[in-house]
């Protein structure tokens, strides 16, 4: 594990100066390009393990690009290019010998729009386990599916219709199914890209409660447009904004309560008080 005190000290990169916490993943001098367009510029960001880190900022500031750099999802876009390092268990996930498939098995993702597979609720969970080399018996598979659904607070709602299509669920249930699906492959980190923005307030609340419960076992990085949500759920907040060249830069990073009550920079303050964005 990456211990802060062993790292070269970059003040803006760590949420709290001198914090001796376990780091889950760390970006160093990260740049993300789409063809010639620089979407994320020179970001250093350390993510604390078993905490929720929110990435906030105005539209187009590179939040999603930053998030997707953490599990190499960006490269599914043919024009995307990433420079710099992302350290995960002391390895740079962008090193040539690293297989992005293996990276994504350890760093899962939940998307803005719920995207369950057109399979049964059961198979939505089981599929990811099977492709990740699940060897157990049918009974063990069933147990694992139940555990994942329980962890995603969905079990009671679907236990009697596991063989119905995942698409028959409501939007909020679908999103929890996607979270259960991500949990089932036992990742270390779960990336969430505006996981509740397509949901109604009650479903949103459920997702937020769920995120909180998940921190006992997982590290969560969540991109959100919703200031209140960031304030409610996250332990740390990274505020991104655009520089003069419209590239996303990390403006401020710290403990969420600090960022929201006592921001260091004027830009952050303007954004969180709703003056722009």
């Amino acid at each position, binding site marked *: 594990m990456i211990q802060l005190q062993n790292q070269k000290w970059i003040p803006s990169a760590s949420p709290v100066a001198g914090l001796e916490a376990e780091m889950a993943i760390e970006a160093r001098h990260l740049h993300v390009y789409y063809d010639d367009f620089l979407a994320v510029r020179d970001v250093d960001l350390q993510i604390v393990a078993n905490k929720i880190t929110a990435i906030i900022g105005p539209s187009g500031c590179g939040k999603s690009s930053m998030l997707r750099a953490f599990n190499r*999802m960006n490269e599914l876009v043919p024009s995307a290019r990433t420079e710099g390092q992302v350290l995960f268990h002391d390895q740079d996930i962008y090193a040539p010998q690293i297989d992005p498939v293996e990276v994504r098995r350890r760093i*899962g*993702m939940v998307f803005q729009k719920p995207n369950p597979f*057109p399979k049964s609720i059961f198979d939505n969970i089981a599929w990811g386990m099977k*492709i*990740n080399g699940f060897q157990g018996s049918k009974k063990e598979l069933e147990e694992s599916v139940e555990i994942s659904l329980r962890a995603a607070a969905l079990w009671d709602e679907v236990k009697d219709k596991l063989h119905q*299509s995942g*698409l028959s669920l409501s939007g909020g249930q679908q999103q929890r199914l996607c979270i259960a699906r*991500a949990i089932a492959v036992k990742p270390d980190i779960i990336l969430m890209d505006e996981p509740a923005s397509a949901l109604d307030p009650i479903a949103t609340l459920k997702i937020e409660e769920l995120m909180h419960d998940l921190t006992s076992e997982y590290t969560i990085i969540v991109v959100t447009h919703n200031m209140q949500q960031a304030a409610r759920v996250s332990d740390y907040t990274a505020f991104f904004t655009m520089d003069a060249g419209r590239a996303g830069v990390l403006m401020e990073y710290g403990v969420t309560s600090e960022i929201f009550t006592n921001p260091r920079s004027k830009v952050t303050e303007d954004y969180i008080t709703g003056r722009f964005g």
Partner: protein
Amino acid sequence: MKPLNRTLLELAPKGRQLNLFRKPRWNEALIQGFLFLCGLFSILTTLGIVYELGKEAWLFFGSGQVSLVEFLTYPRWQPQADEFGILPLLNATLMTTTIAMAIALPLGLCVAIYLSEYASLRARNIIKPVLEILAGIPTIVYGYFALTFMTPMLRAIFGADVVEIYNTASAGLVMGILILPLISSMSEDALNAVPRSLREGAYALGATRLEVAVRIVVPAAISGIAAAIIIGVSRAIGETMIVAIAAGAGPNLTLNPFKAAETMTGHIVRISGGDLSYDSIDYNSIFAIGLFLFFITLILNILSQYVVRRFREVVE
């Protein structure tokens, strides 16, 4: 607020009255009528074809020489001997169709998966136009390709004493090449229509490209692929020129693909090219075959619509 309101009031036409009654809109009615006629045209054409086929077929069955049961079950088609059993023709059609689909389906699906999931932009830009050229080649050229290339090749491989000059294998294989672009382009459309979010969801679970393609994208596109298969089968059953040239000129009930056999379409072409009097039973017989073909493709069309609907329910 005040100044703006006043400006709007000043701009409004003077003496404007409230009138909510219907006003005649002749151009709307005209265009609607024209569009309706366009739709009617295709329906009338279909009805005309069915009428003509039905009329001649009625004369055929009404002649008293052939009953419908005999037509459908008698194992020989020899108009000279007044034997009109469609089985040999149907058998040849099914054989060429099966051989064609055995080529076109796996290859077409592989091409579609390659193009939609794997191909770089450059590979796509080369393969797609080539496939379109393949689809644009006149079928008569395919027919002679079968006769002068495929047949000699089959004879070289399996022996000239095994493979006849005219044979259903050669015609079927070339027909497979003809149908391949149809299957691949329709299947590719279906694969491309699968939302990106599904692929991303699978990749985010640590799926490989192959797993995403075969186990997420293809199942999600299955209704479109099934429709492509059924339309491919329809096309193969109705295909005429290749089988007329390469499959053989004489009804022959055989399951050996290396023997000559005449398909339904091939027979219609040969008979209508010969000198037959218009009211002979031979002449009427080809309309009975035509009607039979029409029913087969009709059933396949209905089936494809059913399949598309059925699978869509499962997927959505």
